[in-house]
């Protein structure tokens, strides 16, 4: 039995995993990072549009600060987010971006003086201030009051991930690529690492650690068409679920991005619309202002995606052999802008569609894009039920996105959650209670279990074809657990997925029997796990009889705060059961800084919770009181909802802005 010991095992080499690893390493702990692929090829590399941080450098970002970022994020989440965690996030995001700058990310910068921008299809001249020259600039993104999304052209994730991975090299962090965690080792509600399969040799080994962090990204690939990389298969969530102890939160909260190209589902960034692009229908008509006169094409993602489907249903789509689609028009931005700030988009259009987006419109359709749900953690990133297990990044439900994530908030979250989790993990590992106290028989039996599963898959006869099961699952998710959902279809989806799950116990790896690198074997065991993830999403969606954020029920169109202001929590304690165990975690309005209100899209259909009004009154009083006492915005915020003591001490400081200089600042070198 091969056992490797380390202090901290990080499963995942994307932005979240690498930032966790560099953090704990800086605190003097040993760490091993596992990744399916070279870390620089993690899906984080595909993030195009940008990272939100309220720097307020650019003219259109002036006046921005943590408070506005907070408000945008909570509204975006349709009040599903954990408000204290969002506060921690918005306060750390500017620090995160500045640290990344220090590590080498070549963020696009403010250039003083006039420049042209397209706003609401009109050319406008924006004048940047002289004192902002050379600072990090930002672009507009959906659902934000200010231009807050910082970027490097449209290769933001790439630049961030490269800087981060290079930092990991500098720190000599031990990264093992092409290694897949296939099970978590745990005993007495305490996690001690993972069983890991080498994807090149097939060898199984045990990585034993004081703390284990899952940073494996999202689960978009349970859908047949997704903007996600092909490795975003939800394996992190699945192995957590298979412990029977760790819980998943809000798995039904799945985001559909308005503009993926048809048919292959590759993303064109929200930056296209942020920079002034618009959606058009079969008649070339710009339809979004009719639906959302205020935010138009830049309403929140869930809203734009729904409006697009509504418009398609009215017969306004462009028909094609791949089904109906709409157009994304960025021709109005001009070639120069496209070639500088949207060059990945341009390359994608050229390579996959054979079109020049500076001259032609891009065929698009809303497509699965982001997993708001994931491993449920508390604010430290630790599982609420399995000690020693942490999760961060898209894999987690930490929960800053609630039922709809704002564009640009995800790469921001990956880094921030990695920074914060690293501190809490290091704190934990500094304590005696973190010592590894696991029976070696336990490790052995976890290892044996995985060996047996693989042998069964390879030796089974007359079994099921995993590719077939997987395709059926993907299609069910597409057809029945999509943008608009309803009880009848969801019920079918759940039943069909249950049947597939049962059949998946009898998978046989056909025609490819190698125990070493074997794509068919990998597909077989992942399909079994993906079916469980698909079930948590479909089942959660069936049970949630309201519409909130990206979860939209045609049979329950209201957001129902009275009954549903709560997180769906799932676990899978009985491996033989065909559904997860469900419970709910109530959100407490009385402690919210921003009580539930109207998001500002369409008609207000909210069923109010009585506490919302009470809390609003309380806040009103508190605010007028604060004004009388002349409190600054930080004091006021602390009065409404204190959160600062939750942050690791080093991240509690205020963020400097041009209009908010820090008194203690040493003079800046010129």
């Amino acid at each position: 039995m091969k056992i490797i010991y380390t202090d901290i095992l990080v499963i995942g080499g994307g932005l979240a995993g690498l930032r966790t690893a560099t953090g704990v390493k800086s605190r003097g702990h040993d760490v091993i990072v596992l990744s399916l692929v070279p870390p620089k090829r993690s899906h984080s590399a595909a993030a195009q549009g940008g990272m939100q941080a309220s720097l307020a450098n650019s003219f259109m970002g002036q006046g921005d600060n943590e408070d506005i970022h907070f408000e945008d994020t909570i509204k975006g989440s349709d009040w599903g987010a954990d408000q204290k965690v969002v506060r921690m996030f918005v306060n750390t995001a500017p620090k995160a971006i500045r640290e990344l700058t220090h590590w080498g990310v070549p963020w696009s910068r403010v250039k003083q003086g006039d420049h042209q921008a397209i706003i609401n299809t009109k050319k406008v001249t924006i004048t940047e201030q002289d004192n902002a020259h050379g600072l990090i600039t930002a672009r507009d993104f959906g659902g934000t009051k200010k231009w807050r999304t910082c970027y490097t052209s449209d290769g933001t994730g790439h630049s961030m991930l490269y800087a981060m991975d290079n930092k990991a090299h500098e720190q000599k962090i031990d990264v093992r690529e092409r290694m897949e965690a296939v099970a978590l080792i745990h005993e007495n509600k305490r996690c001690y690492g993972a069983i890991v399969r080498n994807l090149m040799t097939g060898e199984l080994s045990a990585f034993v650690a004081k703390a284990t962090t899952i940073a494996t990204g999202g689960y978009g690939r349970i859908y047949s068409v997704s903007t996600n990389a092909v490795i975003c298969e939800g394996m992190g969530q699945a192995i957590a679920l298979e412990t029977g102890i760790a819980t998943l939160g809000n798995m039904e909260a799945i985001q559909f991005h308005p503009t993926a190209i048809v048919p292959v589902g590759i993303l064109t960034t929200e930056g296209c619309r942020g920079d002034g692009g618009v959606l058009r229908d079969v008649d070339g008509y710009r339809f979004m202002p009719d639906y959302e006169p205020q935010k138009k094409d830049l309403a929140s993602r869930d809203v734009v995606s729904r409006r697009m489907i509504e418009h398609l249903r009215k017969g306004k789509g462009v028909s094609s052999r791949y089904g109906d689609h709409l157009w994304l028009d960025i021709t109005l931005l001009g070639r120069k802008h496209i070639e500088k700030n949207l060059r990945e988009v341009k390359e994608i259009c050229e390579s996959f569609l054979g079109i020049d987006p500076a001259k032609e419109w891009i065929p698009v359709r809303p497509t699965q894009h982001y997993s708001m749900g994931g491993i449920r953690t508390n604010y430290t990133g630790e599982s609420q039920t399995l000690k020693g297990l942490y999760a961060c990044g898209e894999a987690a439900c930490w929960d800053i996105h609630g039922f709809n994530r704002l564009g640009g908030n995800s790469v921001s979250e990956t880094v921030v959650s990695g920074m914060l989790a690293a501190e809490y993990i290091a704190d934990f590992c500094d304590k005696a209670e973190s010592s590894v106290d696991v029976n070696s028989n336990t490790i052995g039996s976890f290892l044996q279990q995985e060996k047996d599963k693989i042998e069964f898959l390879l030796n089974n006869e007359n079994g099921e074809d995993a590719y077939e099961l997987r395709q059926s699952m993907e299609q069910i998710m597409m057809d029945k657990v999509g943008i608009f959902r309803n009880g009848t279809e969801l019920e079918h989806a759940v039943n069909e997925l249950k049947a597939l799950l049962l059949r998946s116990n009898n998978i046989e790896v056909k025609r490819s029997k190698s125990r070493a690198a074997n794509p068919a074997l990998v597909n077989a065991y992942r399909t079994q796990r993906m079916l469980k993830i698909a079930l948590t999403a479909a089942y959660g969606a069936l049970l949630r009889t309201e519409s909130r954020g990206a979860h939209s029920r045609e049979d329950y169109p209201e957001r129902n705060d009275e009954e549903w202001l709560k997180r769906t929590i799932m676990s899978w304690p009985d491996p033989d059961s065909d559904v997860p165990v469900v419970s709910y975690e109530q959100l407490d309005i009385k402690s919210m800084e921003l009580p539930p209100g109207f998001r500002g899209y369409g008609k207000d259909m909210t069923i109010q919770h009585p506490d919302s009004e009470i809390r609003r009154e309380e806040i009103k009083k508190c605010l007028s009181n604060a004004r009388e006492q002349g409190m600054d915005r930080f004091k006021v915020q602390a009065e409404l909802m204190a959160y600062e003591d939750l942050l690791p001490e080093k991240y509690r400081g205020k963020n400097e802005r041009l209009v908010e200089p820090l008194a203690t600042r040493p003079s800046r070198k010129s």
Partner: protein
Amino acid sequence: MKIETNRRLKISILRFDPHVKGDKPRMETYEIEEAPGMTLFIALNDIRQHHDASLKFDFVCRAGICGSCAMIINGKPDLACRTLTKKLPGEITLAPLPVFELIGDLSVFTGNWMRGLNERLEAWIHEEESEFNFNLLEEPMEPELADEIYELDRCIECGCCVAGCGTIQMREEFVGAVGLNKIARYQLDPRDKRSDKDYYDLIGDEDGVFGCMTLLGCEDVCPKNLPLQSKIAYLRRKMLTIGMKDKSGCGC
């Protein structure tokens, strides 16, 4: 109306699994029906699913962004995911990238090669002893300079330039265009405090910038169209000057 009939594609793949005892490299040919908009990503998955479940290849983003799927396509290194079959003749030959360790069939271990290179070139920002404070405004940078750095930062470590490089065939330790591009990137970046002499020590020899035979193989095959040759030429001039100074004993 014109009725389009889809082509039958003949895709020949160099197969070899070093993990299977006694396995020998061989070409295997698969026939599949071409579909509109088909890329090699779609074609290879089709083959895996319907013809040979053991076929090994790597895709991650399948959007030309992550660099996982470089392979030799009809003799030329390129990204398979964004290669449309309609741009190729009906007979297509695929082989794994040379130079890198073979995992099996079309899958190669570029990751360890690139990490080795990064460590050798210390491809990260070298700061001075600093008291960096992330609460403060970031250091300003000229917008044009940031753009220029980004231009070189766009390398996706796919390995195409390494596969297309004449020098590497002869000098195993040659850092390749990917390595020289990295040095050019850091040399441009004021945040990296290394001196030209430091860079010289890394690439001022035949395994570095003086090894390049200017065969242009790299720039021709770079899927991101990086200005590799002009950057290598620039670095060569720069390093020559430093080398001369060094030899003259000035050392400055």
